[in-house]
C-alpha cells in the first residue's frame, strides 16, 4: 500500500502550525485510519518535526536525504 500523495501534501500543509496528533486524525477523518498513518510515516521520512512541551507537532524543515 502506497501513501496517498494528496493526503501527504494536505498533511504537510496542516502541519505548518503546531497540532496535536489527535487533531490530525480529526482533520483527515474522511480518510481511513491506515491511510493517515501511511501519510504520517511519509511526513516523518521527509521532514524534521518540531515538538512543544505539550506534545504538539509542526514541520520544522525538510530532511536533506532519505
Amino acid at each position, binding site marked *: 500500500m502506497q501513501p496517498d500523495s494528496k493526503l501527504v501534501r494536505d498533511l504537510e500543509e496542516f502541519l505548518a502550525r503546531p497540532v*496535536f*496528533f489527535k487533531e490530525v486524525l480529526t482533520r483527515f477523518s474522511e480518510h481511513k485510519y*491506515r491511510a493517515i498513518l501511511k501519510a504520517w*510515516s511519509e511526513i516523518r521520512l521527509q521532514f524534521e518535526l518540531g515538538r512543544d512541551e505539550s506534545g504538539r*507537532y509542526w514541520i520544522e524543515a525538510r530532511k536533506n536525504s532519505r
Partner: protein
Amino acid sequence: MTPATSNEDFRGMLRRMEHDGCLQRTSKRISPQFISALCSKVPKAIFCEKVDGYSIRMVGGLYWTRTRLASALGWPETELAKQFAKAVSRPIPPVMVNKGACQEIVRTGDDVDLTELPIPFMHEKDGGPYISAGVAFADDPEFGPNAGCYRLMFRTERELGIDLFTASDLRRYYSKAYEAGKPLPIAVAIGVHAYEHMAAAYKAPAGVNEMDIAGALRGEAVQIVRGKTVDVHVPANAEIVLEGELLPNGWTADEGPFGEFAGMQGDLKKNPLFRISAITMRKDAIFQSLHMPWENDWLNGPATEAACMRVLGLAGVQAVAVRATEGGCCGWSVVAAIKKRAGEGKNALAALLALPVVKQAIVTDDDIDIYDSNEVEWAVTFRCQADKDIVILSGMKGKHVDPSVRPWDLKPGELPTTAKFGIDATIPEGIPAFRYERIVPAFKDQVRAEDYL
C-alpha cells in the same frame, strides 16, 4: 474461574475468558482509534473481529479488572498473590522449539510495514498511535535473556519510538550497546498469554530470565523460538512479533506524551529508536492493545501483593491477605489483613511502607474482608485513633510520575523523595475483642430468601 489448559496460547486464554463471561466478541467494524474509548465503556474485554481497513483482529481490555486478570490466569481472585509468590520461588526455564506459530507469516525487507498492524491511537494527548501490549525480549552476554514491557510509539512504517527513560534491564542492555556504538537486537511479542505478560511486567532481579517465572506461572516450560532476523528468543505461539534493532542514537528521538500507568498524561520524552527488520505473525493474527492505567496496573498487582506478603513474613507478621487497591494503581496503596499480636499493626506498616512502590498502607485484623472497601473503612473508623494509629514517614524514596512530589523542581538527575503514611486499623491493644462483636440478623441461617420472594 476456568483453569488454563496445558501449553495454552493467547487464543486459548481468550476462549476461556469468553467462557467465564469476561470477554465479548463484536463483529461490527471499528477503526483502531476508537478501541480505547470502547474498552472504557464496555463491562467486558472486547474482541473486535472486524477492524476497518485491516485484516488483523484486535482485542482490548483483557486485564482491566482483577476479575478479568484472574480469569486470564485461571486462578481464584483471592489467590493471585499467593500463586505469584509460589511461582517466583520455583522458576521453570523455557524450552526451545524449532518451529513457532508466531512465524507462520514472515515479512522482511521491503515487505515490512507497521501500518499493516492496527496500532491504536489511545488517549487525547498522546503523541501518536501506540503499541501498548508489547513484551520486549533481548539478550546480554553478562546477564542473559530478559523480557520486559515497554510502550512503542508509531513513527514510520519501519520505525517505532521506545520508552527507555526509566531504569530497567533493557535500558541497561541498551546502554552497553550504545556506549559501544552498536545497535541492540531485540524482538517484541504482541499477543502473549497473561503468564508471559505478567512475568515480563515483574521487575525480576538482573540475571533472572522472566520467562523462567512465566514457566512457573504456567506450571510448565514456556516454548520459545529463535527470531528470523535476530538472535533473540520469543514465545513460540505469540500472535505477532516485531524483530529489529534499537539504534545507537541514544536518548535523542521525541517520544510521547502517553497516558501513563498512574492514570495521568505523561511528558514528551527523548528516547531511542526501534528499527524493524521483520514482522512475523500467526495466520489470522490478533493484535492486543493494553489500556492504561488499569490493565498495566493489574499486571503488576499480584507481584506487589506477593512482595507485601514477603516483607510481612520477614518482619515476623502473619499476613492472611494483601490487596493492592485499584485506586492506588495496584501498587501505591495496599491493605493487609494480619493475625495480630501486640505491636504488630505498626510493625506491619513499617514493613509495607519500606517497599519502594507502596506510598500508603492500611493494616486490619484478619476478621476484616479486605476485598470489601466498606469493611476496611469500618475498621479504620472504629479501630483507629488518629493520634496514635497513623504513621507518617518523611523523606522516603519517591517517583517522578507522582506530581505531589513536584518533580519539575528537581535538578537533572536528582531523585524525588516522598512522605508515606500508614493506618493501623487493628483492634488497639487493651481493648477486648468482644467490644467489636458484630451484629448478626436473627435467624440468618434459617431464613431462605427464596421462601419469601
